[in-house]
């Protein structure tokens, strides 16, 4: 096995072990979407009527509609959690150890990203399992089809988190990111309402939702759960991933990026 694969395996195992030892993190990641599903969706079920829009071929309940959005929400929060731990690691020093390994920095960052995404996929499947027991049953093959979609959407969201980690100076600033990134990204998307519903209240909001890459991640997952590929969503998600990963690699580059400026006393 090459040096690259050794490093990849080591980082994946380390993240998996951390995931296993931090059970609270796993539970917290599940509680959030379950509250949305069981409390929020139950309340909105009566208020919101949903027409038949692709990929659905019949009328669906609101709980069914928001399942893909909640899957993406798990990945979004996981990506931000990974970014937070990256900032923490950098402040506390363990990130230094990783960055002094004799490997290209882009590969090390990619490994960290992939490890975080795999953890988020486990969380999504746990959530889908609980949703199944709650009565929300999706097509059986949808659970298989959604795997690559989760991988791609997770990589995109992870790359955004990585980029944020490269720009945030201190751990304390992360709360601001939570307010100014996570909530607008989540609420201004198709996670909770379809675009046509949004257009009824504001054309501008509808357009913002349509442009939001998170909407495309949600739609990619939604279509995959019904064994369909949404090429437009895939294209936008892949493009966003490439842009943010490039920015993150630039940010962590010791010669060009933001790391050197961070060192200012």
């Amino acid at each position, binding site marked *: 096995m090459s*040096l690259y694969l050794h490093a990849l395996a*080591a980082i994946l*195992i380390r993240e998996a*072990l*951390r995931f296993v030892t931090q059970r609270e993190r796993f539970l917290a990641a599940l509680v959030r979407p379950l509250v949305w599903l069981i409390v929020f969706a139950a309340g909105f079920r009566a208020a919101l009527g949903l027409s038949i829009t692709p990929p659905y071929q019949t009328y669906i309940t609101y709980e069914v509609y928001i399942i893909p959005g909640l899957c993406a929400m798990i990945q979004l929060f996981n990506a931000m959690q990974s970014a937070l731990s990256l900032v923490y690691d950098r402040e506390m020093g363990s990130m230094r150890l990783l960055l002094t390994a004799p*490997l290209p920095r882009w590969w090390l960052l990619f490994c960290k990203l992939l490890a975080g995404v795999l953890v988020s996929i486990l969380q999504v499947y746990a959530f889908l399992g609980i949703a199944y027991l709650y009565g929300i049953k999706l097509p059986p093959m949808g659970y298989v089809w959604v795997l690559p979609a989760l991988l791609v959407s997770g990589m995109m969201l992870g790359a955004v988190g990585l980029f944020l980690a490269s720009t945030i100076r201190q751990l304390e600033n992360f709360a601001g990111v939570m307010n100014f990134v996570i909530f607008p990204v989540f609420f201004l998307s198709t996670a909770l309402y379809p675009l046509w519903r949004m257009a009824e209240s504001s054309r501008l909001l509808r357009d913002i939702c349509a442009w939001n890459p998170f909407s495309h991640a949600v739609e990619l997952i939604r279509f995959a759960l019904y064994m369909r590929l949404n090429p437009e969503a895939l294209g936008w998600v892949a493009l966003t991933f490439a842009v943010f990963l490039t920015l993150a690699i630039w940010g962590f580059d010791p010669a060009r990026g933001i790391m*050197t400026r961070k060192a*200012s006393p």
Partner: protein
Amino acid sequence: MHDPALEVTDLSFRYGKKEALRSVSFRVMPGEFCALLGPNGAGKSTLFALLTRLFVARQGRIAVMGQDLQTNPRAALACMGVVFQQMTLDLDLSVARNLAYFGALHGLSRREAALRAGAVLERLDMAERAREKARNLNGGHRRRLEIARALMHRPRLLLLDEPTVGLDTRSRAAITAHVHALARDDGIAVLWATHLVDEVAPEDTALILHQGEILQTGRADQLAPKGGLAAHFMHLTEEPVT
């Protein structure tokens, strides 16, 4: 005559307008224990960040075992082991897992990493603690573990940035003795940054860094034959060291 394990030539670095290092040049030979001595704020940590490529200098050159850190960073980094001032252990993992993780980052197979981990832990008197969580170790043993980890890939150059900060006198003495033995017995070049003069042995090379400049370099007992290194340092920099 051996080539230097570490050669720093005309190295300068700025944080914005503030000059942190100014034309620093020195070399460390294989088997040499070089103490980088300077008070807080002298530029030691900046120098370490440059030596480990966390930062890149716009001016100057760093070569590790003849490999230029700027143009051939992977080969240069592969030759060095690093112990940072801040602890960089994963406290949730066991001692053995911490070593295996680092070994894999340097391309060691699981079997090879396990063999080497056993050997380095034995050498640092920690063999019986391999299964313990790093969180359960005291400060001295955590530092020993970090040194063991830095030795996993058999580096030719060992960089230690104030490795005894916060430790009691006994742990400090033990760690200093271990690292001196590594230089003496294994021929590893050591750069040991400290502001504690009592960690420098008479036969060590001392490198006095002050306000980003190397003020003096030479054998510790020759730099300060009479009044001791601490007094000599005070005389040079007008700043006290312990």
